[in-house]
């Protein structure tokens, strides 16, 4: 109940993230990044990893899978968000490693 009562602060407190932060390999610090640039970079990483690790077939049968890219989270998200995650990542990209808090 107290969590619900603090919803206003949850959205307005000074610790909220407002900019994209980026950490280069082996760096000791965060940098700020423009959101559109960050989206392009993430799309590139995702595409490259998929290209490197995708398996179309195994033993001559359809596999259409990558196990090298994963996703975690969903129980705090909306069902529409969960729907798009599963649709794009699994049905579109062949990612099978999807998981969330709801392993019950």
């Amino acid at each position: 109940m107290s969590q619900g009562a603090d919803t206003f602060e949850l959205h307005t407190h000074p610790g909220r993230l407002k900019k994209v932060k980026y950490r280069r390999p082996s760096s000791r610090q965060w940098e700020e990044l423009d959101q559109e640039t960050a989206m392009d970079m993430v799309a590139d990483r995702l595409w490259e990893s998929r290209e490197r690790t995708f398996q179309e077939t195994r033993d001559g049968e359809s596999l259409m899978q990558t196990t090298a890219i994963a996703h975690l989270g969903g129980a705090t998200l909306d069902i529409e968000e969960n729907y798009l995650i599963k649709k794009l990542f699994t049905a579109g990209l062949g990612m099978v490693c999807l998981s969330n808090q709801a392993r019950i």
Partner: protein
Amino acid sequence: MPGLGTSFGRGGATTAQQDLSNSDAIIIMGSSMAENHPVGFQWVMEARERGAKIIHVDPRFNRTSAMVDIWVPLRAGSDILFLGGLINYVLKNNKEFREYVVHYTNAATILRDDFRDTEDLDGFFSGWDAEKAKYDPESWLYKGAPSKNGGREKAGHSEAAAGHGKDRGGEAQDAGKFESDISLDHPRCVFQVMRRHFSRYTPEMVERYCGVPKEVFLKVAETFSSASGPEKTGAICYAVGWTQHSKGVQIIRSAAILQLLLGNIGRPGGGILALRGHASIQGSTDIPTLYDILPGYLPMPFFEADSHKLKDYIKKHKARTGSWSGFDKYFISLMKAYYGNAATKENDYGFNWLPRVTGDHSHFGYWLDMADGKMEGLFVMGQNPAVGASNGRLERKALANLKWLVVRDMVETETASFWLDSPEVERGELSPESIATEVFLFPAAGTAEKEGTFTNTQRLLQYREKPVDPPGDARSDTWFMFHLGRRIKEKARNDPRPRNAGLNALTWDYPTEGKHAEPGVESVLKEINGYTVADHKQLKHIQALKNDGSTACGAWIYCGVFPEDEKNRANERNPQDLLGHGWGFVWPNDCRIIYNRASARPDGKPWSERKKLVWWDEEKKQWAGLDNADYPKDLAPETKDNLKNGKGVEALGGARPFTLHPDGVGWLYVASGLKDGPLPTHYEPLESPVANPLYKQNANPAALKRERPDNPYANSPGDPRFPHVLSTYRLTEHHTAGGMTRTLSHLAELQPELFTEVSPELADEIGLTHGDWATISTPRAIIEARVLVTRRMRPLWIDGQRVHQVGLPYHWGYKGRVKGDVVNDLLAISEEPNVRIMETKALVCDIQPGRRPHGRELLKELEQKMEPA
């Protein structure tokens, strides 16, 4: 989900929280409902005001215990002994609701001659393969029901499969065909098998191994079993205190058996309320971000188990009788929602564009791969595994093996900054220079800054409008996924390789609005609801789904939530009655209490005036009442079943309320669909201070320990290095791993510091002082916490030895306004066999006065601690 799912047909809570006010008795167990579900707890209080007896079974006295009639402390991990004791009490004293049991459960069904119980085989059911460490469940099937197992793997028991999928026992056999004896006297009928199975769960056994005095147990048994019969009902509430065990599904199964025997499912004031721990735990399983299922509990295709022909996949998963006879309609409509016009009959509606599951791709399954350097990238969205997941040290170190990590959250979480300020960096195990992981941290919108739907603990879909825009670059995850998808699809657009066929076909034309091009969330919900392909009309009911590609539907169980273009039922806010009709939309079909056909007698009349809910209206010739009937609307009660030869739900006839099951009844005994047995049986936790009193087999044989040097275990039973029982839990003021609450001033002030609850007896024994520090250790980690000496904890006498229990809330970490050690570092990564959840509620630990060492000294101490005693 499979605990309820296999017992009743659906993995959701059977009732609504408001309906608890109709109960005559309520058991809360595996949950501190007042603490963690305080809003819903008002209905428990309402029931108490009306005279209901409230029972709380919990190792700790907490905010819930303070408000109930009977508090029963028991040893963490002994739940099935206690519940089995209640079942045995009901059976021994003929307290079952006989007419309900005979007509609405599989008590009369006769089992195969080759089935052997754990009582016969010292802790194993028949079919155990010691080499593969798993069951062949063939011998568990009904006598007379033809086995459907033609493929290379048994349905629902594929090696890699978890249990979220739809196998509700109807896949391995044609369960409409079975032999039965409604006198319940046949020695191999479920009722008699169960009677023998639970016969050793006596009050004496409960006293000796749960630590619950016999007279307290009998008081609970008498109180709860009296909330049964035509005039009375009782409810059971549970939360992760039941699920997070190495046999969690079977604990829930025990509750299901008890409630079926007492005739408490589908009736007002009855039911089992699964209290979910996040806003949309239920929603994120219904519309899963899980590896083994597709929306609506359709199974993901498995590489070897499922054929590569749609026809064979459907044949395997479709049932002849009951609601799963519509499997092909649900699945093909999903393919149409995913792949649009490109999904055709000729290409099996894109069936082979879906990836195949080849192993354990659950959180722990792939995280261990990550630890072994086999993963490249990870998206973490609204979760904080660096402090929220078991064996945090392993979890955090594994992140350092990624090429790239994307985190989306409202604040900088421990997961996002593992490379900078984790305990491993402090201890010199990792250094930023040695970590090559590229990290992207995106600011996420909060719930008040985006539109969307949560599905709550009682299957209720509630749509939120957006009061304010998110600050700065913060965006919804809908925005993130949509625009990421747009970019990825662009990369694949002119690339004809087979891997891109599904991606190119994926329908992704959601309209956008506003300066940030936010996708229209309602358009996604409309797709989830489903529509006709030809003229794009919203579907009004599950019955409108077709198997010929003419309908599209993102999740068949949600069909009806958006029945017309301008009618979003999740956004309705005009409650008409106690059950809340008019407020939001409950799946399925706005049934607030599911299986509610069972609230009427077989002849269609209510069991009693006091407990009426849904009944047959003789004049209108349809089901009517206080809730939408969870039954074909005009299927008259006197309609004879045609289980042997019929098809569909109609074959169940007019008096079989559990319509997802091919035999239409509630399952006391689960013939297939579970990996660790058709009946619950007591096993000790993976780490336990005592040996299993029933069998030589100590722990659940089908559970996976994932034991390895970075995930070690204490010896069990009885490791003198770790003599006490440990449970982790949550507090009202904080949300799980604390990322959304430790950052807030009010909540941080209310619960500022990690503490450990210990009894005065334990404090005396080892010299702990209230308010001082204690160091708690397990084979995985050493942490420190403030000592709270309290009578809320008490030692229990277990088989002649005094067992102490230690409590630890787990909300703290190394960031936020208030900090504290990561309690989840103490836990092992372990997997319950059906859903692959870890054991957090019952493990062993040591506790000593004083603070822990820092830096490398801590690792040395951990090594010393692990030296054999």
